[in-house]
């Protein structure tokens, strides 16, 4: 029998910051303006031009570092990363190397390795053959995007599957969205993800040769891309061959993995400290305002709800919908069951969002005390949403309270059985599905005030089942 392989996956995420201006010049960020209309001597790398750091980008970088529980460096410096490419006007990218803005940290079960700031590249439009990569003779460079502030987040290799990767990235994306530092739109490229993937025999702690899966621009592609690459690697090693370190591209249409190695030679980026910029020492007031600007984030919120008794799934669902979560927070103190109240919010978000939060909790409490049936809870909520008021009073006024009088119900059930003889027969014959019309009848009679479970019990009893 063959070895059990364990995937070892690290993620590298580039996030475009939602500042007003670029990283090192005062050009406004571009959102689909005509080509080369958001440029200046600095972001075009003209002779003699010099970069100046955007304070907001530093502040956003700090907020991300704080949200990821990273260590914030008192002193960090920029480096030049040297390589020639038409989308790289200075032929070096100003990035960070051995003194990044943030080190370490974690989000959920994934440890963070580092967080650093850099500048985005220009857009290359490949003209000729349908703008597709291959077979085009010339390209056109549009520098509008060039210099957009980027935060690069590098995780430790703690991810074990494509699915985990997708789930974690969704958490990261929601976290960044709630921080308000980026519009995190993958289709627009404001959130981009690469994955470093290797496999090792389960139980081992070493690392296999890793490959880099580049630029997957949707959560689904990331999950499928990683799945496909893991499968490819397992097939290779099971076939007695060896994985080669390379950069790969996942084609979501064909599910095919292809090598990008084609023309680029082995990189030698010749990093060295950017002499045009001085070391960044974080001003105390910036640190303060960054801290103050951080809301409760999804991971913390979900943990808090779980501790309060909400299921893991529902806790995450609420944490990912801050506008609903804040109302749930108001309801929580008076809720007998956090789980039941959470369910009520999630099942009828739009109604629950209209009603007074404590009233929503009260409704779920009435259901819990069997004073209100789930069926009528909907009605009550709708009324509360429209006109407000006290749930108990609404229930009393509208006569929606659950029936407490067992004899009365028994009579109604008998009447229902009599009125639906054929259904009763089919139930006797063992077809429990036929109970539908009977329950329907009872509910009509009781205006939904009867307890469905109780009705079923009575039906069975009456039919001697």
């Amino acid at each position, binding site marked *: 029998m063959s070895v059990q392989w364990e995937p070892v996956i690290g993620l590298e995420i580039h996030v475009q910051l939602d*500042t*007003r*201006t670029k990283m090192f010049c*005062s*050009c*406004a960020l571009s959102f689909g303006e*005509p*080509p*080369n*209309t*958001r*440029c*200046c*001597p600095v972001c*075009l790398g003209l002779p003699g031009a010099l970069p*100046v*750091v*955007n*304070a*907001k*980008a*530093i502040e956003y970088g700090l907020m991300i570092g704080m949200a990821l529980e990273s260590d914030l460096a008192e002193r960090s*410096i920029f480096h030049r990363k040297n390589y*020639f*490419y*038409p989308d790289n006007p200075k032929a070096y990218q100003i990035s960070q190397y051995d003194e990044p803005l943030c080190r370490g940290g974690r989000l959920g079960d994934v440890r963070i390795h580092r967080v650093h700031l850099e500048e985005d590249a220009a857009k*290359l*439009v*490949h*003209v*000729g053959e349908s703008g597709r*990569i*291959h077979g*085009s*003779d*010339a*390209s*056109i*460079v*549009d*520098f509008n995007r060039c210099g957009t502030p980027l935060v690069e987040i590098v995780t430790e290799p703690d991810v074990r599957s494509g699915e985990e990767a997708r789930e974690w990235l969704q958490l990261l994306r929601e976290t960044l969205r709630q921080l308000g530092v980026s519009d995190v739109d993958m289709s627009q490229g404001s959130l981009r993800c690469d994955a470093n993937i290797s496999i090792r025999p389960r139980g081992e702690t070493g690392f296999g040769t890793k490959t880099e899966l580049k630029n997957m621009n949707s959560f689904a592609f990331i999950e499928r891309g990683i799945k496909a690459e893991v499968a490819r690697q397992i097939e290779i090693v099971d076939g007695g061959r060896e994985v080669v370190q390379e950069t790969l591209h996942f084609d979501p249409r064909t599910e095919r993995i292809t090598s990008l190695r*084609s*023309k680029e*030679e082995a990189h*030698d980026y*010749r990093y*060295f*400290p950017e*002499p045009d*910029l*001085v*070391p*960044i*020492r*974080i*001003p105390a007031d910036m640190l303060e305002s960054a801290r103050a600007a951080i809301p409760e984030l999804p991971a913390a919120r979900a943990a808090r709800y779980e501790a309060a008794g909400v299921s893991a799934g529902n806790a995450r669902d609420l944490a990912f919908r801050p506008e609903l979560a804040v109302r749930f927070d108001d309801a929580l103190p008076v809720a007998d069951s956090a789980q039941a109240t959470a369910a009520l919010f999630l099942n009828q978000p739009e109604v629950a969002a209209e009603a007074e939060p404590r009233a929503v909790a009260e409704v779920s409490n009435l259901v819990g005390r069997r004073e209100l049936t789930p069926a009528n809870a909907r009605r009550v909520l709708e009324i509360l949403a429209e006109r407000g008021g006290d749930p108990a009073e609404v229930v009393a006024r509208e006569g929606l309270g659950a029936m407490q009088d067992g004899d009365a119900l028994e009579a109604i059930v008998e009447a229902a059985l009599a009125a639906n003889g054929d259904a009763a027969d089919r139930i006797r014959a063992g077809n429990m599905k036929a109970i539908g019309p009977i329950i329907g009848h009872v509910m009509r009679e009781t205006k939904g005030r009867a307890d469905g479970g109780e009705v079923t019990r009575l039906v069975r009893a009456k039919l001697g089942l």
Partner: protein
Amino acid sequence: MIDRDQVLHVARLARLELSEEEVERMSGELTGILRHIEKIGELDLEGVPPTSHVVEVATALRPDEPRPSWPREELLDAAPAVRDDGFEVPSPQA
């Protein structure tokens, strides 16, 4: 000593074409210069911090306030090859 292959490797990194005799001359000249430079190899620099900025300037940050970008025509004006309002280059993948 920096030999022919090293010269070619470095020239590739620097995107510099060199003719055959330029490669030979470069190898000789760089070797000569490095022979002098390598004297710093003899210094004891144990624990000496590197200097990349001579003057300690307080962190210089720019407020996040947009200023008008430059007229495209003015910027494209200096370009060797222009097409569709952009800078034309041979395709990297060609």
